[in-house]
Each structure stands twice: as structure tokens, then as C-alpha cells.
């Protein structure tokens, strides 16, 4: 009878055969990163748990002060996600992989066909007169990286088209900030001919339908510089000005462009003079404006179009708001942020956006900003790319995002780790980018 029960139980095996294991690369990356198994990572768990407490407390306060069931659901969401897969990062020494000097790291992007780019500038190199510029590229989705010394220093994360063309802002060998393009997936870059100079800010470039759009500044007179919107083929090396320019001459900085197609683009201006999002549907021949949505005294930091929605980040002083419209700007919904927005806000669809909080936590919304789930924590100041600045976040789509973290485990030891998720933020397998000895 009982042996028969064992036989019956055997027939109900939920995984009757050996299963294919996860790729060994994930384990090797954890080994290279000096990680310890979960059993000894308990203390790494406590810190995220405290962060959960703070987030949950904020949610409770919201319930108490506003009421309604939506916020309770939001708190429950926080719990569900954070208790499942936070990946607290613990800074560890990587013997033999240290690079001397300090790094400025702000460039991370994945393109099509497994391509990807990381770039960093190494300051205070022993015996060197100038900072050293480095570039790491991958052709296998980030599993392996090859490191190259370059005479130019990438300044902003590149934007890719559907093939192997990419654009970015970079400091050339003479110290000038210029638009650069690459046509081999980001391995080699050359300066371009452009009607305006780049400020280097993220958002200065955008690609859609094999067309690159850019914003920059023209020749300045008495400290006042005209803004120039440019447009050209992504496969080329030139950025001519569009036929007409939408913007009044201004000395404000920080314009961004977001392309919806080869002919439609959105340009946001931080100026408080009138409406501050300009749209063209004919490749820059004519422009119209969207009504103000930031609220009194606030200015647009950036506007990003994602299919059916236009997202906008507003600021007044150091306070950021995220707004979203799905009706062309007739009305705006405010995305309630349970965190202080940091450097990066990356909407990828009308519903999904990724954001880096000021404390280094990465959040994701899947409902247009109604609620946010923390999906990654860097585990403290060691995980910051530079003091006081969060990790570098790059989002490719709803499921695919990556984070570049600079680890310092001493005054002369720095390492880079890329964490990348392809399942919406549940699992973040790391890869160590091996830095050459400085």
C-alpha cells in the first residue's frame, strides 16, 4: 500500500526530468563580483527591508491623509516586489581588476543585435597629464566586454537606430564637445558635421525610423545662444538644421528632443516664457506647441514621447514631478512618485517607465505612474557611480533595462558592474567589466 503511494507520488513529479540550468555566465559573473550565496547575504537583506519600511510608511501616510483603496494596493505591491527579488549590491574587492584614479561613469546603452556600450573617463591617472578615455563594447548582450582606449570621451549614453548606427555627444581629442556617430554598433566613433554644438546633456539626441534628431546651440552673441534643432539620417555623419526653428533665442540651457518618427519630434524647453513643448509633424518645417502642464512656476526638464503617451518631467527648484498625457496635452495625469527622482527617468511605453531615485534605488511603473515598484537597490554609497549621484540607468523596453554601477573598495580601487534585467526587473544577473590596470 505505502510503496504504491510512493509510486503514485513519483507519477506526480512536477519536474520529472532534469531541467536545463540557467546560463553558467550568471554564476561566473557573481563569482567575479565576489558575491556570497544567499545564506551569507542575510545582512544585505536587512537594509532593503528597512527601505521597504520607509516606502511602506510613506504609503500608510498616504492612506491616512488621502484615503481610498488605491494606495493600499500600492503598498501591497511594494511588499510583493521587494520581498521577491531585490538584489542588494555589496561592494567587494575584485583582486587583480583594480584601476587607479577616479572614474567618471555615465555612459551605458544597449543597441540591437546584442551590441552595447559603456564608457568612462579616468582622472588622476598616475603619471598622465590628461584624463584617459575608455570604451567597453559588447556584441553578445553584455555577457562579455572588450575594453578599448580612445582619444575621445563619450559624454552621454548613445542612442541606437534599428541597425548598427548610434549617436552620442563626446569630447574630442582637442577638448571640444561634439556630436559623434558610430556605424559599427558603438565600437568606433567619429565626430560629425552639425549645424549646432551639443551641450552634451542626455536627451540632446533621439532616433526614430532611421532618422536622428538633435538639439544644440548655434553661434552665441553677447552670451545669448540660439537653439538649433537638427535632423539627419542615422546612417550618415551630418546633422543639418531643420527648415524652421521653433524656439525663441534664449540663454536657458537643457533642451531635450524626443523623436516619434522620421517627421514627428517633441522638443522641450526649460524656459518659462510661454508654452514649453514644441512639436513638429513635418520634419521641422512647421512647429506647434502643447499647452503648459507643469503648473505654476514649474518648468519642463524633459518630454518623452512613447507611442500613445507623452511623459514630462517638471521641476521647481529640486522638486521633480512626472506628468503624462494620452490626449495630446489636453489633460495631464500626475504620476505619484513615492521617492525623490534622481538623474534618470526613462519612459518606454504609455504604461511602463523606469526611474532612478536620488537614493540610488531603481523603480518601475507598469500602470502609467499610478504606482511604482522598487526593483533594484544598489546597497548604499558604494554602489553609487559618483558621490551623491545614483547609478547609471538605461532602459531599452518594458522588460529590458540595465544599470551601471561603479564600485569603490578603496581609494585606488574601482570596478564596474553591469546589472541587466530582461524580465521587467525581477532578476538582475551581473557582469563585471574588467578594467585594465591603470
Amino acid at each position, binding site marked *: 500500500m505505502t510503496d504504491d503511494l510512493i509510486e503514485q507520488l513519483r507519477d506526480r*513529479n512536477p519536474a520529472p526530468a532534469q531541467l536545463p540550468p540557467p546560463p553558467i555566465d550568471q554564476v561566473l559573473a557573481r563569482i567575479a563580483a565576489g558575491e556570497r550565496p544567499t545564506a551569507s547575504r542575510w545582512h544585505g537583506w536587512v537594509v532593503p527591508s528597512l527601505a521597504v519600511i520607509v516606502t511602506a510608511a510613506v504609503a500608510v501616510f498616504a492612506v491616512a491623509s488621502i484615503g481610498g483603496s488605491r494606495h493600499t494596493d500600492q503598498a501591497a505591491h511594494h*511588499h510583493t516586489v*521587494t520581498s*521577491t527579488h531585490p538584489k542588494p549590491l555589496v561592494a567587494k574587492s575584485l583582486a587583480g581588476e583594480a584601476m587607479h584614479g577616479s572614474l567618471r561613469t555615465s555612459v551605458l546603452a544597449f543597441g540591437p543585435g546584442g551590441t552595447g556600450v559603456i564608457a568612462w573617463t579616468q582622472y588622476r591617472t598616475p603619471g598622465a597629464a590628461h584624463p584617459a578615455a575608455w570604451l567597453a563594447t559588447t556584441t553578445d548582450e553584455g555577457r562579455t566586454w572588450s575594453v578599448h582606449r580612445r582619444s575621445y570621451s563619450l559624454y552621454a549614453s548613445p542612442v541606437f537606430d534599428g541597425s548598427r548606427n548610434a549617436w552620442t555627444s563626446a569630447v574630442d581629442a582637442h577638448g571640444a564637445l561634439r556630436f559623434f556617430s558610430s556605424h559599427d554598433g558603438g565600437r568606433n566613433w567619429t565626430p560629425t558635421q552639425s549645424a549646432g554644438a551639443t551641450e552634451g546633456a542626455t536627451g540632446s539626441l533621439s532616433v526614430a525610423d532611421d532618422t536622428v534628431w538633435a538639439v544644440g546651440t548655434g553661434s552665441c552673441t553677447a552670451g545669448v545662444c540660439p537653439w538649433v534643432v537638427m535632423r539627419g539620417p542615422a546612417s550618415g555623419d551630418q546633422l543639418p538644421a531643420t527648415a524652421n526653428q521653433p524656439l525663441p533665442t534664449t540663454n536657458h540651457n537643457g533642451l531635450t528632443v524626443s523623436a516619434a518618427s522620421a517627421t514627428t519630434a517633441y522638443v522641450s524647453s526649460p524656459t518659462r516664457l510661454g508654452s514649453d513643448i514644441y512639436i513638429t509633424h513635418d520634419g521641422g518645417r512647421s512647429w506647434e506647441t502643447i499647452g503648459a502642464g507643469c503648473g505654476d512656476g514649474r518648468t519642463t526638464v524633459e518630454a518623452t514621447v512613447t507611442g500613445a503617451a507623452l511623459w514630462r518631467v517638471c521641476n521647481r527648484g529640486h522638486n521633480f514631478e512626472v506628468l503624462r498625457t494620452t490626449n495630446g496635452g489636453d489633460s495631464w495625469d500626475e504620476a505619484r512618485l513615492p521617492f525623490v527622482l534622481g538623474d534618470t527617468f526613462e519612459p518606454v511605453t504609455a504604461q511602463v517607465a523606469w526611474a532612478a531615485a536620488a537614493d540610488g534605488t531603481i523603480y518601475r511603473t507598469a500602470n502609467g505612474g499610478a504606482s511604482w515598484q522598487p526593483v533594484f537597490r544598489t546597497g548604499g554609497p558604494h554602489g553609487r557611480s559618483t558621490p551623491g549621484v545614483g547609478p547609471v540607468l538605461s532602459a531599452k523596453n518594458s522588460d529590458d533595462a540595465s544599470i551601471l554601477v561603479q564600485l569603490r573598495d578603496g581609494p585606488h580601487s574601482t570596478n564596474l558592474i553591469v546589472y541587466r534585467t530582461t524580465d521587467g526587473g525581477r*532578476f538582475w544577473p551581473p557582469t563585471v567589466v574588467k578594467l585594465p590596470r591603470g
Partner: protein
Amino acid sequence: VDKRTRFEQLYRAHAGAVRAYAVRRAPSEAVADDTVSDVFLVVWRRLDDVPGQPVPWLLAIARRSLANRRRSDRRAAALTDRLTSLRRPASTAPETGDRLLDALATLPEPDRELLMLVAWEGLEPSEIAELLGVRPGTVAVRLHRARGRLAAALSRHDSTEAAPQEARS
């Protein structure tokens, strides 16, 4: 054979078995994958300690890893629940719709684990003894009792199911 090569050989040979073990016990495939990763981090650190027949040793590590994860999940959930005043239903074993699996779910964890190791992992009592860190004779006794308790649980389950039907008729 250098360390890296030996590690990769072990991974290729046994990671699938470890993952199957974890999938049967973990709340999700992602947690199962994390467990495999944890197990082989330990393997890397203790490569010289890996026995000639490594499966029981690997499964013992996986078992500890899953237990640690369950503990940390419970503690995090308890803290969050207290703060948010969220009330969850009491933890109950999910009903699978299969009388045998439902009966298995009502057994104490040591009994359940033992039966699963025999039926699903296909381990011999000597291998289970190595995995659990007990003598083979102890495994035989515990297994005998666990089988008996499974049969009893199944009878209880069947009688509970039958009672409402009798009441209706």
C-alpha cells in the same frame, strides 16, 4: 584540470538536477534559478570539498539556500505587514486538486521532504542520509513513518471529501 574547467564540468553535469530540485520546492522559477546560482557559488568556494558523488552534497546546499530564503521572505513580509496593517489570510497549503498531493501538503515538512527525495529526486536512503546529515538507519525509520502518515493523511482527505457528498445525499 584547472579550477575553472572543473567548475564548469560540475555545472554542466549537475546544475540541471539542482534546478529540478529547486523548481519542486521554490515559489517561482526565478527563485529556483537564484538557488542554482547560490549552490554553485558555494561549489566555487569549496571546490576541493566536492565529494565523488556530488548530488546529495549539492542538494543539501540547495536545501539550506531555500530555507534561508524562506526565512528572510517571512521576516520581510512580517515587518511590512505590521507597518502597513495589511492582513493576509492565514498560511494554508494550496489545494492542487490532486488528492495525493493535497495529502502530502498536510504532512510535517520533514516527512514531506523525505518522501519527495525518494519519489522525485530518486535518491537512495544512503544518499538521503548524506544529504540530511543523519545515519542511513535513521532515514529508513523516518521514511517508514512518513509513508504511514501519508497513507493516514490520504484516508483523512478522502473521508473529508466524502462527508459533504453523503450529507447531500
